[in-house]
């Protein structure tokens, strides 16, 4: 757990089965990518945002934090679409114009899809997600690799935070040049440190009977079928609406 991770440990869905959260966010994500109409996108965006903030009680700070960074990238990425060159039908000459509709739609779609992702990320911890992957029989190589990656990245992020603080205290972040030097030192020495931690963990787990496999049992949680049914029903309705709206556009 670190400052940048957007998972909200106090969300009201933390004890829900991850499958419910995955179906909710995943279904909405598919809808937002596939829906051709801006109105449907708007409805999906509103539904996901409201559900996450009101029902799951995710702190709006976490939610907004999750939305903020991608938003900037979304805008920058839309510039090439916004600035379209076209052929003037009267003069038959190429000219520049602003394709606000296309760019706007792209930004809205990106925003809606990002809201779905943020909804899942704020309500579901990575270990829960890994439990889900194990349940659907994802290859062990991959789940174990992810588990260890998560484990190591948690401790590396703590290390980075302390080292960063120590550098700050020793005037390391004063000038741009000092900043680059400080980041270079930290970045370069983090990998050997990470390897060191890896070796120590392997030995520590050996003491606990590690023989090449990282078996664990997740805490018991039950899927609530009524909730799952409701989620799927809403999504089917939205999909039907999207199909109807899409036909109107064609």
């Amino acid at each position: 757990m670190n400052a940048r991770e957007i998972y909200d440990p106090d969300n009201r869905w933390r004890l829900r089965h991850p499958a419910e959260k995955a179906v909710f966010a995943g279904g909405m994500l598919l809808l937002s990518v596939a829906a051709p109409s801006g109105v449907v996108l708007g409805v999906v965006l509103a539904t996901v945002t409201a559900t996450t903030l009101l029902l799951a009680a995710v702190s709006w700070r976490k939610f907004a934090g999750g939305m903020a960074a991608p938003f900037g990238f979304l805008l920058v990425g839309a510039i090439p679409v916004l600035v379209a060159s076209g052929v003037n039908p009267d003069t038959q000459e190429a000219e520049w114009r602003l394709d606000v509709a296309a760019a706007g739609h792209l930004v809205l779609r990106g925003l809606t899809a990002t809201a779905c992702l943020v909804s899942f990320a704020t309500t579901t911890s990575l270990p829960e997600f890994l439990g889900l992957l194990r349940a659907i029989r994802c290859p062990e190589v991959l789940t174990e690799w992810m588990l260890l990656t998560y484990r190591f990245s948690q401790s590396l992020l703590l290390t980075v935070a302390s080292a960063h603080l120590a550098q700050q205290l020793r005037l390391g972040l004063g000038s741009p040049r000092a900043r680059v030097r400080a980041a270079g030192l930290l970045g370069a020495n983090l990998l050997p440190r990470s390897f060191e931690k890896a070796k120590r963990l392997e030995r520590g787990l050996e003491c606990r009977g590690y023989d090449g496999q990282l078996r664990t049992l997740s805490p018991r949680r039950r899927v609530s079928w009524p909730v799952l049914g409701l989620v799927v029903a809403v999504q089917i309705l939205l999909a039907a609406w999207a199909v109807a709206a899409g036909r109107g556009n064609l």
Partner: protein
Amino acid sequence: MHIMEGYLPVTHAVGWGIASGTILTYCVWSVGRSLRSRPQDKFLLAASSAYMFTLSALKLPSLTGSCSHPTGVGLGAVLFGWRPMVVSGFIVLLFQALLLAHGGLTTLGANLFAMGIAGAWVARGVYSLARTARLPFRVATFLAAALGDLATYVVTAAQLAWAFPDPAGGFVASFTKFLGVFAITQVPLAVAEGLLTVLVMNALMAY
């Protein structure tokens, strides 16, 4: 550099998903087999994936002052070969999406292709070429990391141009536009990543 969630049309998302998924499946199988004979590598590989993710979660200073992140794929490709880097790239991209809402799930296939697959191939290829050309180790590492990074950026621009061709100029015009928009951050970043990779290699030699 990633394509954000929701940016790609369905057909593109599915297409890149299948392409990258196939290569990823092969790599998981292949790395899994070699891990069976060298189980201790599991921890080291995960430690380097964690390093890649950590770097990407950091705000490193770049010349333009924007928030940016090196990929670490070049470094890993030199250390471990390209196959583990495809898996590693997948994990890092997935973590970025699920932990930081950076990148995305529907764009995961496209992003993996650009970063994990193209990036690792180019990095590994450049490294091998540079070593055959008897370039010094540090130069080879620098080139591998920097060009691997550039490859990621070029492929991403191409993916976006393909998805959003210019109404008049088509793919080529759009490709140029996307290359242009991202060049400001990505070119200096590639150089920075090359330099950082050399520093890391120095630190590793001491280790």
